[in-house]
């Protein structure tokens, strides 16, 4: 029996391999833009993918929207697939600053330009553009609001993102550079909650076990801010000032409810659209007219202006 399976399996594979010899890939009718991002269960990535998708369709392109699950090997395979399908350009939120270089270079060697959004890559001259939000500027913006809300004095906890992620370090540095100037603002704890809501909730509970005298929590992203806020509410400490980063729909809702006091919105949708527009320009003229590295400023969201923001973009000025 076992041998039969082997033999039949081989027969089918041979038939398949034989069948392919005569075929060639047909050129697509419309030019194709591949949009590759981390998984859409995070509204941030969903928003940027949808914004890029809509912008590309509006400019008359076909689109291929893919997700690499933050796995560089999977990303490599998706880039292969996009190239095989004849993509003219790739809009990519990459799966690792170092681990993505080979895939983007492969696309470049195949004559397909890549436009990186949200996350930078540790190489220049490989991608055509790298458009990211200015995390440092955003962090100083959030920290200044945090200082104002605390009245320039108090004891605070910082929840840091995943240590291996460059944005976690940049944001933490931005926070530190502002807070250092205020001697009456004292750090109680600085822990990593790996961008995770559950972890932030648990770490906040643990910190509160040892110390209930906390005036503020400064989180490296909104998911952690929401988790910390839940722990603070459960502990009967609703007055603690929580400030996040990202501008996620969850955080915006929490700001409207008064549970979180401020966040810094990354205009992800706008960045994605800009990338598509530059891709279109590049395909038509051979140049984006812009430097490879571009940064877009973040925006402060407070209870007063929260209603002007949509999903990762400023809707009404």
């Amino acid at each position: 029996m076992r041998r039969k399976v082997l033999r039949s399996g081989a027969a089918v594979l041979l038939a398949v391999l034989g069948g392919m010899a005569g075929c060639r890939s047909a050129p697509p009718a419309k030019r194709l833009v591949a949009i590759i991002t981390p998984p859409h269960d995070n509204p941030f990535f969903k928003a940027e993918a949808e914004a890029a998708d809509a912008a590309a369709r509006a400019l008359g392109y076909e689109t291929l929207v893919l997700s690499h699950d933050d796995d560089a090997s999977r990303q490599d395979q998706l880039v292969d697939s996009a190239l095989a399908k004849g993509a003219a350009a790739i809009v990519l939120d990459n799966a690792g600053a170092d681990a993505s270089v080979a895939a983007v270079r492969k696309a470049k060697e195949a004559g397909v330009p890549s436009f990186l959004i949200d996350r930078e890559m540790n190489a220049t001259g490989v991608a055509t553009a790298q458009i990211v939000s200015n995390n440092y500027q955003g962090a100083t913006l959030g920290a200044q609001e945090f200082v104002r809300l605390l009245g320039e004095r108090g004891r605070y906890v910082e929840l840091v993102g995943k240590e291996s992620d460059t944005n976690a370090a940049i944001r933490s540095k931005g926070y530190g550079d502002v807070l250092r100037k205020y001697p009456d603002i004292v750090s109680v704890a600085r822990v990593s909650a790996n961008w995770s809501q559950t972890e932030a909730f648990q770490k906040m509970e643990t910190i509160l076990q040892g110390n209930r005298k906390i005036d503020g929590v400064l989180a490296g992203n909104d998911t952690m801010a929401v988790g910390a806020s839940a722990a603070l509410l459960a502990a009967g400490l609703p007055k603690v000032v929580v400030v996040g980063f990202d501008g996620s729909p969850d955080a915006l809702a929490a700001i409207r409810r008064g549970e979180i006091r401020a966040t810094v919105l990354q205009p992800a949708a706008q960045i994605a659209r800009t990338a598509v527009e530059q891709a279109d320009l590049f395909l038509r003229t051979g140049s984006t007219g812009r430097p490879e590295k571009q940064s877009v400023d973040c925006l402060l969201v407070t209870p007063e202006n929260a209603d002007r923001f949509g999903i990762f973009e400023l809707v009404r000025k």
Partner: protein
Amino acid sequence: VSLLVRLRAVLALALLVAVFSSLTPAFLTQGNLVMLAKHVALNAILALGMTFVVLSGGIDLSVGSIAGLAGMVAGWLIHDGLVLRPLGVVVYFSAPSVIVIGLLVGIAVGAVNGLLVVRARVAPFIATLGTLYVARGAAMLVSSGATFPNLVGRADLGNTGFPLLGTGTLLKLPAPIWIMAALGVVSAFVASRTPFGRRVYAVGDNERAAALVGIRVARVKLAVYVMSGFCAALTGLVIASQLQAAHPATGQTFELSAIAAVVLGGTSLSGGRGSVGGTLVGAFVIGVLNDGLVLLGVSEFWQIVIKGIVIVAAVVVDQLASRPGTGTAPGRQR
């Protein structure tokens, strides 16, 4: 009916190929099929090692972590070299020796799995779940969670050439395809033509009976985990070589794809029944699904749902076809 069941993976594969090639002209092209085979190779290499473990009645959950660890060790040796502080020297290894060391890491973790199962009598599921965590943590520790970039090596250090393992080509086919093919042929031969292969089936069939006829069960079990560790490390090295970078999270959830390929290929999770050829076909079924759904532009969430349905459907066919009472009798179909 029995023949139909045995061939279900092949039928599923043929069906998927027919569906995808009718839906998108880009599917059945030479370029796409070569690419598909290159993608399948990663899971297939893992699944080949896993096949022997499952045939022996065990399971190896640690393969994804071993892949990650082996890649990280290779990345570390190429990028930083081995720093011997007391001697004040840094030793750089040539690309082939880096690959050998990476494989030895996999063999070592596999041996730990085997010893836990054989000597400490820990259930394979638990033993390899433990090493899943330990190996993943170790991979993170190698670099404190960072990625080793740019693994092309330096000519003056004599450690260039590592990327060839994943990106080299022979007769226009990428190296991973050759590795998968070679490993597949060797595995099929070992499973069906050698005394060792027969012993693996016997142990999975009925461990006590195998021991009674004089098979050294412990040795067989140790060997299958070592083989699985070797295959996992090889996968990790190929990935690091393809990406020219080693990332500590590489290989997360790979164990599930590998087990899916083995089960789709008709190998029984209770051991003693199955084949290497089936596993390869199973790996191709998953690969065709992965790439085909991407080419079609199916949303990622539907991709996950469809993959799950195909895997379960294939096994349901198996269950329906094996009659109650005799259906679970091990070794019935050999």
